[in-house]
């Protein structure tokens, strides 16, 4: 449908006024909520890929994500009515001692853009808070961010505390500037992604398995 393709395009451009207008028009025209959702998700997905290739940068990601969020607010009641739930429930935060949040926010945005429910605990988050939030929201995945070599030990301790808490099949994924695949493996995390778009693929892969 041409309108839905256009909706995808305006999300990519981060045009929130148009995103809301087209979403409302689709709702009014009784386009199935699933199709509207797919068009929005396709937009964020494309922005993530372009970001990965350095074709767009943080500002473009931020405005695309806000356009998506505002369109989703309109669509929300239709999704509920149609019984469409978020794909996964995720908790995210920067580990204790770390105040960097730009990268973590982008990951949260990409996850929301992929129709995950995201509980963002902010920065400087102690392990207990991660565990409590996972229990409260019945999360399937938890994301830990660390930007400092000095908070990498806190990341390690948090992964251990979460694993020791015995939270069933919960997956722990990690990221941040100094984090590598090797480090992730070493501290017992289930996955690592160097960037926000990859964080979506990572969770899908881990949870589909």
């Amino acid at each position, binding site marked *: 449908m041409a309108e839905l393709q256009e909706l995808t395009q305006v999300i990519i451009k*981060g045009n929130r006024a148009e995103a809301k207008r087209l979403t409302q028009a689709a709702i009014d025209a009784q386009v199935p909520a699933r199709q509207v959702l797919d068009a929005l998700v396709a937009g964020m997905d494309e922005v993530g890929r372009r970001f990965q290739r*350095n074709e*767009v*940068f*943080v*500002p*473009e990601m*931020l*405005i695309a994500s*806000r356009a998506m969020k505002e369109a989703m607010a309109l669509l929300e009641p239709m999704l509920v009515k149609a019984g469409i739930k978020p794909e996964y429930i995720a908790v995210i935060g920067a580990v204790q001692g770390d*105040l960097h949040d*730009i*990268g973590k*926010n982008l990951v949260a945005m990409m996850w929301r853009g992929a129709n995950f429910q995201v509980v963002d605990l*902010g*920065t*400087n988050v102690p392990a207990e808070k991660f565990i409590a939030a996972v229990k409260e929201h019945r999360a399937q995945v938890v994301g830990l961010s660390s930007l400092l*070599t*000095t908070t990498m030990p806190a990341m390690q301790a948090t992964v251990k505390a979460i694993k020791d808490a015995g939270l069933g099949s919960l997956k722990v994924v990690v990221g941040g*500037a*100094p984090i590598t695949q090797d480090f992730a493996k070493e501290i017992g995390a289930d996955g690592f992604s*160097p*960037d926000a778009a990859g964080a979506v693929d990572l969770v899908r892969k881990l949870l589909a398995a």
Partner: protein
Amino acid sequence: MTTQGSLTGRERVNRMFARQDQDRIPRHESFWPETITRWQEEGLSGEQSDVLDLLESDFGQVTWMWPSPFRGQGRTIQQDASTRVVRDEHGKLARYWKNKSGTPEHLGFDCDSREKWEQVYKPALLNTGLQVDVHAAKRAFRRARELGQWAYVAGVESFEQTRTMMGDEITLMGMMEYPEWIRDVSVTCTDVMLRNLDAIVAEGVHFDGLWTYGDMAYNHATMCSPATYRELIWPDHKRLAMWAHAHNMKFIYHTDGDINGVMDLYVEAGFDCIQPLEAKANMDIRTLCPKYGQQLAMFGNCNVMKYATNDRAVIEEEIRAKLEAGKKTRGYAYHSDHSVPPQVSWETYQFIIDLVKRYGKY
């Protein structure tokens, strides 16, 4: 001290900028405060300045400038029985506990709209008067001259100032949605900076260089696109570089992150030197020097992630390789690729000083 060998620090750095022969590469370093504390526990007697003396740093800071709209006027704007909300001098809002210590909760930024910028923050910035202690600068300048150091004024440039005042999200989204607004903030911050610089010079402090700080990149790229940077911030960076040149000074630009995409713009704006060239963000003087080494002096690039291993062989190879690459252009000064973190032991850092001295000879 700095007059070691045949050249003073000042002569050495000036010769580096001119790509003339030097006895050794110039040196400087930055540290996390926690690093110095650790080293004091491990036997360092003295402060950061003493470590810089051991390194025989060639650089002397005259003053530090971070213009703010409410200078010295952080204040409580709201409170209840156990907490208070404070707006700091830049406009950042945080909640503090009254009866216990602990990390304050970051709440946001007071300057969150164009109206607020125009009605409150812009007039405040323009009306706060001088933001430097000119007399202290004069004293520091005299001392730097006595020590034969290359004297510089350090300051935060407009992109960093904007983010400090309005936060990353408002700033970065504003670049897309209200570019004229962000441009206005950048121009205003730069005007204020230049006014302060003029005041310092008017007092007879003819320092050698302007070293501006503004982190515009991260591990994978610049925060905004090179095109956005060119349009909104670069003209002010160019203004700062031109001001420096008009006063017979050099212009050093500090940024973290991967700046490969904007190096040509730096050259075009007339920057003289880039620091600290973060290795883990794909910056490598082995490829940068051959390409940009004539136009831009390179300052730094020794990988602190390698220092943090405390593995002597790893560290020696890093310093040897980087210094060798830098020396080929004669336009290179030693610095780590940001600041030395507290994982590095005092013993290791003393070894690093030895290596820098050994491999830094011409």
